[in-house]
């Protein structure tokens, strides 16, 4: 049965590449394998009877209710044009110096964390918002595109990002499973809040490293990131204007994050309050009409449905994969690798890195993590550290030429005057920073595990 399980995995990847919607491609391929197995008498049809229970488990998952609420918040902030005004006021604040606009883009990328969690969406938004201005200012195309790709993917690993909610939920059940398998019947738990806390310092450290790199470029080669021409009078603003544009969104995101990290609210509650706050913010800015509200609700519905149909598809896939003893196969393969837990971990990270070329964060979280997570965690890895490593690893994958998602999406919105090789050259230093960060985290796991321990005492 080893071959059937591996065949299913490979077949699913091939079917996904055809471009049919992921949710149905995953579930459909798995069901075709199940039908084949039943016909040949090698697959137990009773596996499929647990489908309704699985489905209801997804419907009744309290943690994941945070997802639509965060999506609602993100889309509302987008419709209120928060990102535009943030970028506008930040670039006025820093923009007088060389490198200032690049730093403004980086900070907006960091704050856009509550986006939909789809790499494409943030990179496209950032690209449309900032690339034309940067090019007009005379930024080198490589520096401009590299900064946008890196900043656009940054939002994924900085809480409160939606993919961290999903990853936290999947890791939490993987961790339970790992401990139960070892005979520990009162398992320790890991929550979405833990993962938020764990990702905060590494995420900010990445921002810091990006910032240092941009400052270095601006110092060494000011012509690559020039300040605006002195005649550009629009570029001067009062401190009050900057404060107004910055204060409200910063307060909102700060409050949401603070409520979760201080343990005062669950991620779901914080997301609900954040969404309500975003609505009020949009109203104060005069951006909330009935038409806008409808659009926010309908887009939230579509994004939520998309995410959860993938989850349903992935759980059907997992069901059939288990039916073919795929979990046993993966367990045996990973535990027999040379180098023990380190070897297994490195192999998993490499596989995820390669899968990141074709699959988005959500799919990898739902399909790969449930399969490999319990094995790695049973081998003694810390769940929070593992989650943060996975997140940074995937972000690196999205940036890596020639297949990285972020590059494709930026290419799609960049003018023809920017060569693809410019984009490739531009992301190289950021990839180096990502790898450096992975190395730092591997050497000092406390960077991820210290804060959750302090906050939640776990």
């Amino acid at each position, binding site marked *: 049965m080893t071959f059937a399980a591996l065949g299913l995995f490979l077949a699913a990847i091939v079917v*996904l*590449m*055809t*471009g*049919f*919607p*992921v*949710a*149905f*491609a995953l*579930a*459909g391929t798995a*069901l*075709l394998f199940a*039908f084949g197995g039943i016909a040949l008498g090698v697959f137990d049809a009773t596996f*499929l*009877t647990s*489908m*309704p229970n699985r*489905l*209801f488990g997804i*419907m*009744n*998952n*309290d943690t*994941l*209710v945070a997802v*639509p*609420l965060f999506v*609602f918040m993100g889309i509302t902030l987008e419709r209120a044009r928060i990102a535009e005004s943030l970028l506008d006021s930040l670039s006025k604040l820093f923009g007088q110096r060389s490198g200032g606009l690049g730093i403004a883009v980086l900070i907006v990328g960091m704050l856009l964390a509550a986006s939909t969690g789809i790499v494409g969406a943030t990179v496209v938004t950032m690209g449309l918002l900032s690339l034309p201005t940067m090019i007009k200012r005379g930024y080198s195309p490589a520096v401009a595109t590299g900064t946008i790709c890196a900043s656009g993917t940054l939002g994924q690993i900085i809480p409160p990002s939606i993919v961290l909610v999903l990853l936290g939920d999947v890791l939490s059940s993987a961790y339970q499973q790992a401990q139960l398998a070892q005979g520990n019947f009162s398992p320790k738990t890991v929550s979405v809040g833990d993962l938020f806390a764990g990702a905060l310092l590494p995420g900010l450290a990445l921002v810091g490293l990006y910032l240092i790199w941009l400052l270095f470029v601006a110092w060494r080669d000011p012509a690559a990131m020039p300040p605006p021409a002195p005649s550009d009078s629009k570029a001067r603003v009062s401190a009050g204007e900057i404060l107004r544009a910055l204060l409200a969104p910063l307060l909102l995101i700060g409050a949401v994050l603070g409520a979760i990290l201080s343990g005062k*609210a669950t991620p*779901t*509650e914080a997301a*609900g*309050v954040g*969404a*309500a706050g975003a609505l009020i913010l949009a109203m104060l800015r005069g951006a909330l009409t009935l038409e806008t*509200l*409808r659009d*926010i*609700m*309908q887009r*939230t*519905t*579509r994004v*939520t*449905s*998309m995410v*959860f*149909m*993938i989850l349903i*598809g992935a759980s*059907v896939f997992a069901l059939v994969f288990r039916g073919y003893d795929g979990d046993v196969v993966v367990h045996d393969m990973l535990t027999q690798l040379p180098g023990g837990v380190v070897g297994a971990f490195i192999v998993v990270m490499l596989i995820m890195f390669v899968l990141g*070329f*074709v*699959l*988005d964060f*959500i*799919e990898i979280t739902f399909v790969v993590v449930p399969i490999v997570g319990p094995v790695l965690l049973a081998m003694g890895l810390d769940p929070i550290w593992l989650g943060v490593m996975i997140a940074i690893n995937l972000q690196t994958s999205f940036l890596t030429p020639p*297949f990285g998602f972020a590059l494709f999406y930026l290419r799609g919105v960049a003018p023809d005057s920017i060569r693809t090789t410019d984009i490739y050259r531009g992301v190289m230093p950021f990839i180096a920073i990502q790898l450096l960060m992975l190395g730092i985290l591997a050497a000092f796991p406390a960077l991820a595990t210290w804060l959750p321990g302090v906050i939640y005492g776990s």
Partner: protein
Amino acid sequence: MLARLDRISDFVGRCVAWLTLLMVVNTVFVIVGRDLFGFGRIWMQELTTWMHAAVFLLGAAYTLRHDEHVRVDVFYGRLSHVRKAWVDLIGTLVLLAPVCIVILLQSWDYVFGPRGSWASVETSSQAGGLPFPAYPLLKSFMLLMPALLLLQGAVNAARAWSTIRNKDAAT
């Protein structure tokens, strides 16, 4: 005809979309009630989860109608209209339809069977949770979801087929 069927998905989708706003309002209500007035009801918390499940189940066909179920578009994005139509036609028949039919068949007894949710007058597993018929109704959406998806899938397949045929007619 096809446009009329589209409108079914759209109508259902636009209706459940309002639930996202109600989720936000209800979440705030629960927190304010609990923290300021010491007023907490289990069923109010369950209501957010209930609405969330209703949104993604009943929004699935609506999302399909707007082609917003994520695709891996590394190759798909570069295909011609006709090739895309072939992917959509075959995918709908071989992948989407079987998935929906299996979910329908497997879930039928779970919801409507003699020991299913309606027959056993299922209520929340927690005391003070949502009353009957909240859960049987929600579980019925497990059947409505694949049914609506099949309908929208049929519309998409018909569209794909006409794209393919028009191309043949043109050459």
